[in-house]
Protein backbone atom coordinates (compact mmCIF):
# COMPACT_ATOMS: atom_id res chain seq x y z
CA UNK A 1 0.00 0.00 0.00
CA UNK A 2 1.26 3.46 -0.90
CA UNK A 3 2.62 5.40 2.09
CA UNK A 4 1.26 8.86 2.79
CA UNK A 5 2.85 11.67 4.76
CA UNK A 6 0.69 10.93 7.81
CA UNK A 7 1.92 7.35 7.98
CA UNK A 8 5.15 8.76 9.41
CA UNK A 9 3.62 10.60 12.37
CA UNK A 10 5.12 8.01 14.74
CA UNK A 11 8.32 10.02 14.27
CA UNK A 12 6.53 13.08 15.65
CA UNK A 13 5.65 11.10 18.77
CA UNK A 14 9.32 10.29 19.41
CA UNK A 15 10.38 13.87 18.63
CA UNK A 16 7.80 15.23 21.10
CA UNK A 17 9.12 13.21 24.03
CA UNK A 18 12.72 13.91 23.04
CA UNK A 19 12.07 17.67 22.96
CA UNK A 20 10.48 17.53 26.41
CA UNK A 21 13.65 15.92 27.71
CA UNK A 22 15.65 19.00 26.77
CA UNK A 23 13.15 21.83 27.12
CA UNK A 24 9.91 21.28 28.98
CA UNK A 25 8.17 24.18 27.26
CA UNK A 26 7.86 22.00 24.15
CA UNK A 27 5.32 19.99 26.17
CA UNK A 28 2.74 22.57 25.10
CA UNK A 29 2.86 21.00 21.64
CA UNK A 30 1.03 18.08 23.27
CA UNK A 31 -2.11 20.21 23.16
CA UNK A 32 -2.26 19.31 19.46
CA UNK A 33 -2.99 15.72 20.51
CA UNK A 34 -5.84 16.96 22.71
CA UNK A 35 -7.43 19.53 20.44
CA UNK A 36 -7.14 17.87 17.01
CA UNK A 37 -9.10 14.69 17.91
CA UNK A 38 -11.81 16.85 19.50
CA UNK A 39 -11.90 19.03 16.39
CA UNK A 40 -12.29 15.98 14.13
CA UNK A 41 -15.08 14.60 16.33
CA UNK A 42 -17.00 17.83 17.00
CA UNK A 43 -16.76 19.43 13.57
CA UNK A 44 -16.23 16.41 11.33
CA UNK A 45 -18.16 13.74 13.23
CA UNK A 46 -15.37 11.22 12.77
CA UNK A 47 -12.31 9.72 14.43
CA UNK A 48 -9.98 10.85 11.67
CA UNK A 49 -7.26 11.60 14.21
CA UNK A 50 -7.27 8.07 15.67
CA UNK A 51 -7.64 6.53 12.23
CA UNK A 52 -4.86 8.43 10.44
CA UNK A 53 -2.99 11.02 12.47
CA UNK A 54 -2.30 9.50 15.89
CA UNK A 55 1.48 9.27 16.14
CA UNK A 56 1.25 7.31 19.36
CA UNK A 57 -0.96 4.60 17.84
CA UNK A 58 1.42 4.36 14.92
CA UNK A 59 4.39 4.11 17.28
CA UNK A 60 2.76 1.21 19.15
CA UNK A 61 1.95 -0.49 15.84
CA UNK A 62 5.57 -0.04 14.75
CA UNK A 63 7.14 -1.28 17.98
CA UNK A 64 4.66 -4.03 18.68
CA UNK A 65 3.99 -5.08 15.11
CA UNK A 66 7.01 -4.55 12.91
CA UNK A 67 9.66 -4.70 15.65
CA UNK A 68 7.81 -7.56 17.38
CA UNK A 69 7.99 -6.06 20.88
CA UNK A 70 4.49 -7.32 21.63
CA UNK A 71 3.31 -10.74 22.81
CA UNK A 72 0.18 -10.13 20.72
CA UNK A 73 -2.15 -11.74 23.25
CA UNK A 74 -5.78 -10.77 23.38
CA UNK A 75 -6.44 -7.61 25.37
CA UNK A 76 -8.27 -8.54 28.61
CA UNK A 77 -11.98 -8.07 28.10
CA UNK A 78 -12.40 -5.76 31.09
CA UNK A 79 -9.97 -3.25 29.54
CA UNK A 80 -12.23 -2.95 26.50
CA UNK A 81 -15.49 -2.87 28.45
CA UNK A 82 -17.56 0.28 28.31
CA UNK A 83 -17.46 0.64 32.11
CA UNK A 84 -13.67 0.62 32.27
CA UNK A 85 -13.26 2.86 29.23
CA UNK A 86 -15.59 5.55 30.52
CA UNK A 87 -14.29 5.13 34.08
CA UNK A 88 -10.74 5.68 32.85
CA UNK A 89 -11.89 8.69 30.87
CA UNK A 90 -13.46 10.24 33.98
CA UNK A 91 -10.30 9.52 36.00
CA UNK A 92 -8.18 11.03 33.24
CA UNK A 93 -10.34 14.16 33.09
CA UNK A 94 -10.19 14.58 36.87
CA UNK A 95 -6.39 14.34 36.72
CA UNK A 96 -6.35 16.82 33.85
CA UNK A 97 -8.56 19.17 35.88
CA UNK A 98 -6.21 18.80 38.84
CA UNK A 99 -3.30 19.73 36.60
CA UNK A 100 -5.11 22.84 35.36
CA UNK A 101 -5.93 23.76 38.99
CA UNK A 102 -2.26 23.43 39.98
CA UNK A 103 -1.41 25.73 37.07
CA UNK A 104 -4.00 28.22 38.34
CA UNK A 105 -2.54 28.10 41.87
CA UNK A 106 0.94 28.82 40.53
CA UNK A 107 -0.41 31.61 38.33
CA UNK A 108 -2.25 33.14 41.29
CA UNK A 109 0.85 32.98 43.47
CA UNK A 110 -0.75 30.50 45.91
CA UNK A 111 1.75 27.75 45.05
CA UNK A 112 5.28 27.68 43.80
CA UNK A 113 6.53 26.13 40.57
CA UNK A 114 7.57 22.50 40.92
CA UNK A 115 10.21 21.51 38.41
CA UNK A 116 9.27 17.85 38.52
CA UNK A 117 7.14 15.50 36.49
CA UNK A 118 4.74 13.03 38.06
CA UNK A 119 4.65 9.53 36.62
CA UNK A 120 1.50 7.44 37.04
CA UNK A 121 0.06 10.39 38.99
CA UNK A 122 2.15 9.45 42.04
CA UNK A 123 5.90 9.19 41.42
CA UNK A 124 7.69 12.54 41.37
CA UNK A 125 10.73 12.64 39.09
CA UNK A 126 13.10 15.64 39.11
CA UNK A 127 13.01 17.30 35.67
CA UNK A 128 14.58 20.66 36.50
CA UNK A 129 17.32 20.61 33.83
CA UNK A 130 14.69 21.19 31.17
CA UNK A 131 13.74 24.65 32.41
CA UNK A 132 15.57 27.85 33.31
CA UNK A 133 13.60 29.79 35.93
CA UNK A 134 12.18 33.08 34.73
CA UNK A 135 12.18 32.24 31.02
CA UNK A 136 8.38 32.40 30.93
CA UNK A 137 5.70 33.10 33.58
CA UNK A 138 5.66 30.28 36.15
CA UNK A 139 2.17 29.08 35.26
CA UNK A 140 3.23 28.40 31.67
CA UNK A 141 6.12 26.27 32.94
CA UNK A 142 3.88 24.53 35.50
CA UNK A 143 1.41 23.58 32.79
CA UNK A 144 4.29 22.22 30.70
CA UNK A 145 5.46 19.96 33.53
CA UNK A 146 1.88 18.79 34.13
CA UNK A 147 1.08 18.10 30.51
CA UNK A 148 4.37 16.30 29.92
CA UNK A 149 3.66 14.14 32.99
CA UNK A 150 0.27 13.20 31.57
CA UNK A 151 1.66 12.46 28.12
CA UNK A 152 4.58 10.41 29.43
CA UNK A 153 2.38 8.46 31.85
CA UNK A 154 -0.07 7.54 29.09
CA UNK A 155 2.83 6.58 26.81
CA UNK A 156 4.24 4.28 29.50
CA UNK A 157 0.85 2.66 30.14
CA UNK A 158 0.49 2.21 26.38
CA UNK A 159 3.93 0.61 26.13
CA UNK A 160 3.19 -1.77 29.01
CA UNK A 161 -0.07 -3.01 27.50
CA UNK A 162 1.61 -3.14 24.09
CA UNK A 163 4.24 -5.54 25.41
CA UNK A 164 1.77 -7.81 27.23
CA UNK A 165 -1.16 -7.69 24.84
CA UNK A 166 -1.73 -6.44 21.29
CA UNK A 167 0.39 -3.61 19.82
CA UNK A 168 -2.42 -1.08 19.92
CA UNK A 169 -4.14 -2.26 23.12
CA UNK A 170 -3.85 1.30 24.45
CA UNK A 171 -6.28 2.40 21.71
CA UNK A 172 -8.98 0.19 23.27
CA UNK A 173 -9.15 2.42 26.37
CA UNK A 174 -7.38 5.63 25.30
CA UNK A 175 -9.34 8.46 26.98
CA UNK A 176 -9.20 10.66 23.88
CA UNK A 177 -10.45 7.77 21.75
CA UNK A 178 -13.28 7.07 24.19
CA UNK A 179 -14.26 10.73 24.35
CA UNK A 180 -14.20 11.26 20.57
CA UNK A 181 -16.14 8.05 19.95
CA UNK A 182 -18.74 9.23 22.49
CA UNK A 183 -19.00 12.58 20.68
CA UNK A 184 -19.31 10.82 17.31
CA UNK A 185 -22.05 8.52 18.65
CA UNK A 186 -24.03 11.50 19.97
CA UNK A 187 -23.56 13.33 16.66
CA UNK A 188 -24.67 10.27 14.67
CA UNK A 189 -27.78 9.91 16.86
CA UNK A 190 -28.66 13.60 16.51
CA UNK A 191 -28.17 13.47 12.72
CA UNK A 192 -30.30 10.33 12.49
CA UNK A 193 -33.14 11.83 14.57
CA UNK A 194 -33.04 15.03 12.49
CA UNK A 195 -33.41 13.03 9.28
CA UNK A 196 -36.36 10.96 10.53
Amino acid at each position, binding site marked *: MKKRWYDYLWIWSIVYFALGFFNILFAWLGMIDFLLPLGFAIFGGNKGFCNHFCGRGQLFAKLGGQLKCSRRRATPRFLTSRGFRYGFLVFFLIMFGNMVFQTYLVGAGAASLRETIKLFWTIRVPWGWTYTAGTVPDWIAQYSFGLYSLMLTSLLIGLIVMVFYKPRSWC*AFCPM*GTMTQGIC*RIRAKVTKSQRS
Partner: protein
Amino acid sequence: MLSKRLAEVDRARCVACGACAQECPKGAVRIMNGCFARIQEEICVGCGKCARICPAGCIEVKDREGRR
Protein backbone atom coordinates in the same frame (compact mmCIF):
# COMPACT_ATOMS: atom_id res chain seq x y z
CA MET B 1 -15.84 -14.73 -6.83
CA LEU B 2 -16.46 -14.25 -3.11
CA SER B 3 -14.18 -15.88 -0.54
CA LYS B 4 -15.53 -18.61 1.71
CA ARG B 5 -14.78 -16.63 4.85
CA LEU B 6 -15.24 -13.03 5.89
CA ALA B 7 -14.65 -10.81 8.89
CA GLU B 8 -17.48 -9.66 11.12
CA VAL B 9 -17.37 -6.76 13.61
CA ASP B 10 -19.13 -6.68 16.98
CA ARG B 11 -20.23 -3.04 16.66
CA ALA B 12 -21.10 -2.69 20.34
CA ARG B 13 -17.51 -3.46 21.35
CA CYS B 14 -15.70 -1.72 18.49
CA VAL B 15 -13.69 1.35 19.58
CA ALA B 16 -13.32 2.67 16.01
CA CYS B 17 -9.55 3.08 16.36
CA GLY B 18 -8.99 2.19 12.72
CA ALA B 19 -6.20 -0.33 13.28
CA CYS B 20 -8.16 -2.87 11.21
CA ALA B 21 -8.62 -0.43 8.33
CA GLN B 22 -4.88 0.27 8.24
CA GLU B 23 -4.08 -3.45 8.30
CA CYS B 24 -6.58 -4.64 5.69
CA PRO B 25 -4.70 -5.46 2.46
CA LYS B 26 -7.89 -5.08 0.40
CA GLY B 27 -9.14 -1.81 1.88
CA ALA B 28 -12.35 -3.57 2.89
CA VAL B 29 -12.75 -1.84 6.25
CA ARG B 30 -14.41 1.54 6.73
CA ILE B 31 -14.84 3.42 9.99
CA MET B 32 -18.43 4.64 10.02
CA ASN B 33 -18.85 8.16 11.44
CA GLY B 34 -16.26 7.46 14.14
CA CYS B 35 -18.62 4.94 15.74
CA PHE B 36 -17.60 1.46 14.54
CA ALA B 37 -15.78 -0.42 11.80
CA ARG B 38 -17.75 -1.84 8.90
CA ILE B 39 -16.54 -4.64 6.67
CA GLN B 40 -17.44 -4.35 3.00
CA GLU B 41 -18.47 -7.94 2.49
CA GLU B 42 -18.01 -8.00 -1.28
CA ILE B 43 -14.35 -6.94 -0.90
CA CYS B 44 -13.35 -8.91 2.22
CA VAL B 45 -11.31 -12.05 1.53
CA GLY B 46 -11.46 -13.35 5.11
CA CYS B 47 -7.68 -13.26 5.65
CA GLY B 48 -8.15 -12.39 9.33
CA LYS B 49 -5.46 -9.70 9.51
CA CYS B 50 -7.99 -7.25 10.95
CA ALA B 51 -9.03 -9.72 13.65
CA ARG B 52 -5.41 -10.31 14.66
CA ILE B 53 -4.60 -6.59 15.00
CA CYS B 54 -7.89 -5.47 16.62
CA PRO B 55 -7.04 -4.25 20.15
CA ALA B 56 -10.62 -4.62 21.32
CA GLY B 57 -10.93 -8.18 20.04
CA CYS B 58 -14.23 -7.39 18.40
CA ILE B 59 -13.57 -8.88 14.95
CA GLU B 60 -14.19 -12.52 14.13
CA VAL B 61 -13.64 -14.36 10.88
CA LYS B 62 -16.61 -16.55 10.00
CA ASP B 63 -17.79 -18.74 7.14
CA ARG B 64 -19.95 -16.81 4.72
CA GLU B 65 -22.25 -19.80 4.43
CA GLY B 66 -22.66 -20.15 8.18
CA ARG B 67 -23.82 -16.56 8.51
CA ARG B 68 -26.68 -16.95 6.12
